[in-house]
């Protein structure tokens, strides 16, 4: 693990396109991610935002955190609004009504606005091949309305609509895999990213911008109140999600899978899960089930990325170290000034 990643934020422009003063909760992983994404995008863009946390924290009239042209219309249609912007700019460019420079059109939405209510509009926009970048900020539930489950909520997580009951406890279904869904549209570029890995994130934003046609970026966005974590731990949790293989960092570039943050061994999922209030009620059996699934999916991903022999056993990927903080996580805490 390179230390460079920790300081990568400083290599970005000092210009803020997502201006301070917004009303995100302290420790909001999404706000950190949005800030980095906007820095990577720069100023020559137009944004379409879905209703959700970032919309609400950034745009109470007459205030706005957006230093770039930005529009919010409704919850489920960010991809369609972006389609319209792209088509409108294209037609005006062709007819000489605006100058010929390329303007990047970006849509942003949460996991609900992407994987649930916005899935149809997203699918339509990807299928039609609009030249735009869609960024999904995945905090794994409807946080803006008070932590209700979405189809992106992970198995076992307690939310207000997947509560810890006597019969059932937490989310009973597995997280919808948006990467597979978007890749199935044969779009030229799709990637996952995490605010814990800024260099990787920035590179993927740039690739998405440069892609001709639709690009999709799925960004993990830890949510302190929704996940039951301390504000100062959100980036550490994002890092652990990557290191456990729960949220692997990879891209699908013109159909080719590439793991962008390779892991020698996976950190046991327990280390990630036990730090979060939403998983407090997980039974050992459920924990085991999650571990098995993560290993299996990691194995499948490595096979797709041609980084592993398909005959290797899935459990070989798992680190034997069962307890204790990983080296990378420790480094992160030291750099962040937290007590060792």
């Amino acid at each position, binding site marked *: 693990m390179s230390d460079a990643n920790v300081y990568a934020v400083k290599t970005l422009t000092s210009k803020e396109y997502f201006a301070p003063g917004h009303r995100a909760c302290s420790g909001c992983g999404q706000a950190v991610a949005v800030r980095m994404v906007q820095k990577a995008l720069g*100023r*020559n*863009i*137009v944004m*379409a935002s879905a209703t959700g946390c970032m*919309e*609400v924290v950034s*745009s*109470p*009239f*007459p*205030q*706005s955190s*957006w*230093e*770039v*042209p*930005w*529009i*919010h*219309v*409704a919850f*489920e*249609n960010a991809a*369609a*609004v*972006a*389609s*319209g*912007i*792209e*088509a*409108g*700019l*294209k*037609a*005006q460019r*062709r*007819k000489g*009504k*605006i100058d010929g420079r390329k*303007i990047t059109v970006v849509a942003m939405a949460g996991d609900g606005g992407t994987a649930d209510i916005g899935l*149809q*509009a997203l*699918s*339509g*926009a990807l*299928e*039609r091949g609009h030249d735009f970048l869609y960024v999904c900020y995945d905090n794994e539930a409807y946080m803006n309305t008070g932590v209700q489950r979405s189809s992106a909520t992970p198995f076992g997580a307690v939310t207000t609509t997947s509560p810890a009951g006597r019969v059932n406890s937490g989310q009973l279904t597995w997280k919808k895999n948006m990467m597979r869904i978007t890749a199935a549209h044969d779009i030229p570029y799709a990637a996952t990213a995490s605010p814990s890995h800024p260099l990787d994130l920035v590179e993927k934003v740039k690739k998405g911008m440069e892609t001709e046609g639709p690009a999709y970026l799925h960004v993990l966005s830890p949510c302190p109140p929704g996940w039951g974590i301390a504000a100062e731990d959100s980036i550490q949790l994002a890092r652990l999600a990557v290191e456990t293989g729960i949220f692997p960092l990879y891209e699908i570039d013109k159909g080719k899978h590439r793991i962008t943050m390779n892991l020698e061994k996976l950190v046991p999922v327990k280390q990630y899960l036990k730090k979060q209030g939403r998983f407090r009620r997980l039974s050992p059996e459920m924990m085991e089930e999650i571990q098995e699934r993560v290993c299996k999916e990691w194995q499948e991903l490595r096979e797709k990325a041609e980084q592993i022999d398909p005959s290797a056993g899935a459990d070989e990927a798992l680190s034997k170290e069962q307890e204790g903080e990983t080296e990378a996580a420790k480094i992160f805490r030291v750099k962040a000034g937290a007590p060792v």
Partner: protein
Amino acid sequence: MAKRIGMEVSIAAAEAVKQADVDVVAAYPITPQTHIVEKLSEFAADGQLDGEYVTVESEHSAMSVCIGSQASGARTFTSTSSQGLALMSELVPIVSALRLPLVMLLVNRSLSGPLSIWNDHSDVMSIRDSGCIQLFVKNGQEVYDHVFIGYRIAEKENVLLPVIINMDGFILSHTFEPVEIMTPDELKGYLPPYQPKYTLHPDHPLTMGAYATPALYTEAKKAHDEVLKASYPSILEAWNSWGKRTGRHYRPVEELFCQDADTIIVSMGSLSETAAEAVKLMRDQGEKVGLLELRLWRPFPFEEFSRAAAGAQRLIVMDRAVSSGGPGGPVASEIRSALYGINNPPRVDSYIIGLGGRNVTIQDFVEMVEKTEAESALSPVTGSTYEIFGAREHH
């Protein structure tokens, strides 16, 4: 010279959209709107329409694309019917609140259920209060003309509101009529290139669609209401200017034999053509009957309407939609409000007719007039009296 050509009204509509130099069309197919968007697709494929045709996956996305496109500064068009409007209806008050001047041809069709592809006005009544300018047209020429008129009204800097043109499904959309197609020279100058003041562009970043707290929502609504009402002179201007150019004059309320009429039929859309025939027939028989055609639905022309209707003893109001559990017909209830408080207001009889494509004949109008005249001497009407005319009793 403008040529009068026999053509399907939907094709005339598409012709007008092409001539209006629209930059982006986004639409989803739905009966009976389809012929309009099929023709526009052909124009785009042939390079005759210099714009982008976005083949969306739903009407919700159709309106979303239109909002994005219009916000980027492109002149944008859409068309839908019935369930399509219902699906996009979340966005209709948003497009007007964002002050985006697109034009929509709403090919009126009844709302399900039961499912019916045929004509009535239940679709548009569901978005009555959406803050858009809403007009009704009654023949192919009016459809064609109002595409240009619609954009001229919508894009005025002091208006900037969407214009929804209502045309009856099948009865109008699928009928062949002679339509005078204007030459580019004749159109020149009526619809100048769209030059929006506020657009989404990196050269002048701005935020559109910010949300309002309780401290500001009321003010936003009031401002919207005021601008819609204040659009009235701009609507008249667009009609007058078109009239001077073409000789085809339009008014918010069209009158036929209203001045000395005892009984006035009030109607909207293509029904007015049949009603006009009925009125002429009754006039020939010496009955003092008139017709008042409501062309402008929003903003409602209260003053013009009251003036035109004030002399009559009876108004017979046609509604092609039901406000269930309420005052019956939405148009009749509007008119009762419009006349409230004036001296000796006419009696207002509310008839709901022509639902789900049920034909309305000249004889039906004659019957409604006779029935009303006979009853008005015997029974009073209240604000909630209405009749669903011609409905068969079930046994």
